[in-house]
């Protein structure tokens, strides 16, 4: 472990930034066609990525989860990265090659059972010395259910009730108590026989932004993986969540808000812009643009020219879900389609250009200094407590950020120069 003396931190203690590293996932953000793109499955990729994050003193590594290979129009979606490893198993292996980095995995409460999942998380806690986090997600699609005994799915209120009961049972098990729980969703009698971890229990993350999701987060979560990566919506969300905390008897500092953000770095403005244009066009090929549109229009559009104009809103087929296994779904198709067509007409955009505009979210673009300024501004003005960074290249996409942006954040005293504690909780709330 390299260790710098913390002399660069100003005594007037600026609000501290918390950063996390999202392993590149299976949506179009991840550019697999780039010459530098490596395996999304080989352990060496996780090793490199985790080592970079730890070098950059990140709070944690973040893994998403997939429980069914995505499909589009009845066929396996083949345009993006496909396939990923089991979350728990990778985190356990990464624990062996890291010392301080938190290990956060996304794990589903709908298609797992509390005793088993709580035991797995407690086991990672044990092998990692208290560095585990759990991003709680729920699932509402029967598509994923086809891989599990339970099958089917739960309606929105039910899946949050189940998730809450799931967490209650898990917390009792993590306390290494004899649990005798009989609730609406679970009957669990037993004990884990795993000692209480040095951080008490795994850090809890939550990502849902519906009303139920926000309440679940305010009640249980230590951090939120938020989608609001622009200043205005970020501040609104931040204020809302911190307000909800009080309702559950919690202090405003007891929950960190971390928007997900991709980033594009260049040594000059021009370089950054050039890289940005390259990445956007690599992320949204003509075929990806058409499939993105098909998801909104609910029909096959393969006859359309991605560089031509959008199809008419009249062609939208309601109540058809062409894409399955994705986190985002379109509720009001006709409304979405209309917004897309209007944007295209107003700005004279082709199908591909509209798709690029619509798919680009939460992007930090600029020189290292500009990006450091931007991140610091988010944190100091209460639009977030930091970021979960989502690089576009596996596994080296984080390297440049750690080499160039992290030192700038450290210089201004907004970011740690070494880990404060041994556990994830100690570092997240340092």
């Amino acid at each position: 472990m390299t260790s710098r003396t913390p002399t660069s931190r100003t005594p007037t203690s600026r609000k501290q930034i918390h950063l996390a590293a999202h392993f590149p996932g299976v949506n179009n953000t991840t550019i697999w066609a780039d010459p530098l793109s490596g395996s999304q499955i080989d352990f060496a990729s996780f090793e490199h990525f985790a080592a970079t994050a730890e070098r950059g003193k990140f709070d944690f590594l973040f893994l998403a989860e997939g429980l069914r290979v995505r499909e589009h129009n009845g066929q396996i979606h083949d345009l993006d990265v496909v396939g990923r490893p089991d979350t728990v198993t990778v985190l356990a292996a990464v624990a062996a090659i890291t010392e301080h980095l938190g290990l956060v995995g996304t794990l589903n409460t709908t298609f797992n059972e509390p005793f088993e999942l709580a035991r797995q998380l407690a086991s990672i806690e044990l092998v990692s010395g208290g560095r585990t986090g759990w991003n709680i997600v729920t699932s509402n699609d029967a598509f994923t259910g086809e891989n599990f005994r339970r099958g089917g799915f739960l309606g929105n209120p039910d899946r949050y009730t189940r998730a809450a009961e799931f967490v209650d049972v898990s917390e009792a098990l993590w306390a290494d108590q004899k649990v005798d729980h009989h609730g609406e969703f679970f009957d669990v009698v037993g004990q884990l026989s795993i000692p209480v971890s040095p951080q008490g229990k795994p850090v809890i993350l939550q990502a849902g932004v519906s009303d139920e999701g926000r309440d679940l987060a305010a009640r249980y979560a230590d951090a939120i993986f938020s989608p609001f990566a622009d200043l205005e919506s970020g501040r609104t969300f931040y204020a809302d969540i911190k307000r909800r905390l009080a309702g559950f008897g919690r202090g405003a500092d007891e929950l960190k808000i971390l928007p997900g953000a991709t980033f594009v770095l260049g040594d000059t403005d021009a370089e950054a812009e050039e890289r940005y244009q390259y990445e956007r066009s690599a992320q949204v090929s003509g075929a990806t643009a058409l499939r993105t549109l098909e998801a909104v229009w609910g029909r096959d559009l393969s006859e359309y020219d991605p560089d031509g104009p959008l199809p008419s809103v009249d062609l939208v087929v309601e109540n058809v879900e062409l894409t399955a296994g994705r986190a985002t779904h379109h509720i009001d198709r006709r409304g979405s389609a209309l917004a897309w067509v209007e944007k295209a007409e107003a700005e004279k955009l082709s199908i591909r250009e509209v798709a690029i505009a619509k798919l680009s979210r939460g992007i930090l673009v600029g020189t290292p200094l500009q990006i450091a300024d931007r991140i610091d501004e988010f944190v100091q003005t209460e639009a977030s407590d930091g970021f979960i960074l989502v690089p576009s290249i596996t596994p080296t996409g984080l390297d440049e950020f750690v080499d160039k942006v992290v030192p700038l954040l450290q210089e201004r005293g907004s970011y740690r120069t070494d880990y404060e504690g041994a556990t994830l909780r100690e570092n997240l709330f340092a």
Partner: protein
Amino acid sequence: MSIEIREARWDGEEATALRLAMDAELRPRYADLFSETTSAPTPVDTTQIVFTLVAFDGDQPVATTSLKNTDGFFEVKRVFVAESHRRQNLGARLLAEVEERALALGITDLVLQTGLRQPEAIALYEREGWVLIPPFGPYADDTEISRCFAKAIVPLFVAVELPARGAPATLVSDAVAAIGTFAAAGVDLAIIGDDLRDAPEGQARVDAPTLAAFAAPKVAGIGLAATISTTHTEPFHLAKVVQTLDHASLGRAAWQVAVSTSAEEAAQFGRKPAVDEPEAWAEAEEAIEVAERLWDSWEDDAEIRDRATGRFIDRDRVHHIDFEGRFFSVKGPSIVPRSPQGRAPIIVSVTSAASLDVAARRADIVRVTADRVTGEGRHRRGRPRTARHRARGRARGIRISPRPAGDPAARHRCRRCRSRFRRDPGCCSLRHLSRPVRAARRPHHPP
């Protein structure tokens, strides 16, 4: 008597003389088959001889055999013991010497052909663990007289089980240190036990696959088997756990199948009441089937990264499994791409009649306890027959049992060249076609 086995020339004086004696002894047995029009057998191409062995009693040559490369089949040829030296186990010694030398050359699959009218030879091969196979290669048309055998030779395979429990403070470091010690001592496989029930007072337990995955980057050169129960868990989850352990360990994963029959475990999950052993093992067998289908759901070359068409995978090489069974229905494909071993070895510990059946049909490695090895006699057809076979974990019943579900041809597809039948003799070894014991330390097709 002191017998020494030496390497000799196929066409050397001693070997030739012994083979002539063999011909003279066997010819009368098959005389009715050799009409006058039958041409003499084609002479052996000596460039195909891998080695010839001759056993000497002092200066006297008394036995011989050879290993020949017949179009990619490593064939044991002309095993002969002079009449003066029979019933001294010399045939078995010669075969053992062939196996040892073949293994040193990297040859792991042997075949041979003998004849219906040589019952003493057939008895020898059966005793030595050879398995009857359909006539191969040059003998394929001679199903009436030819009797062909195969043997996969595997070096001594040592596995050690360690329980995933111990003193709470040192359980993890102790386990990793122990696995390191095993690896240094040349142990092939560390089997990490698991038990969901309460640990004994003062002890802690840890999830076996988690401990195995944690050990994987820390200890090289040893297989890592995780015990996972199938009774209250999801086959989709456990299949991807084993695949991921295989990825993280670069092809060193194995799965020890377990069942949970206690009321205590049923109450932990609260999904269903406790089930008895036969029911639990029936479910386990279905879970194994699901797991193996998921492991096979991605073909080796599914990831194409074709920039021209923008396709990351060839979706025709990633398959739904559409499994519908008594206990599960699982759509697939796996979320995890094919792992280095494809299918991780499956370990079943025989503790009951139900687990013995599943072991015989499904396992790559069977675990038996010593009292069972010494205490039992004959078993029914299709089950391990002798104590010795059971002790070696390589019972012939396991190799030749037909697998009950799925397309048998597809199950025996070669993982390297993808052919369902023996297409390339240099590639698809008999081990693929006969359900091998895969050594964790030496995956047949390394990544």
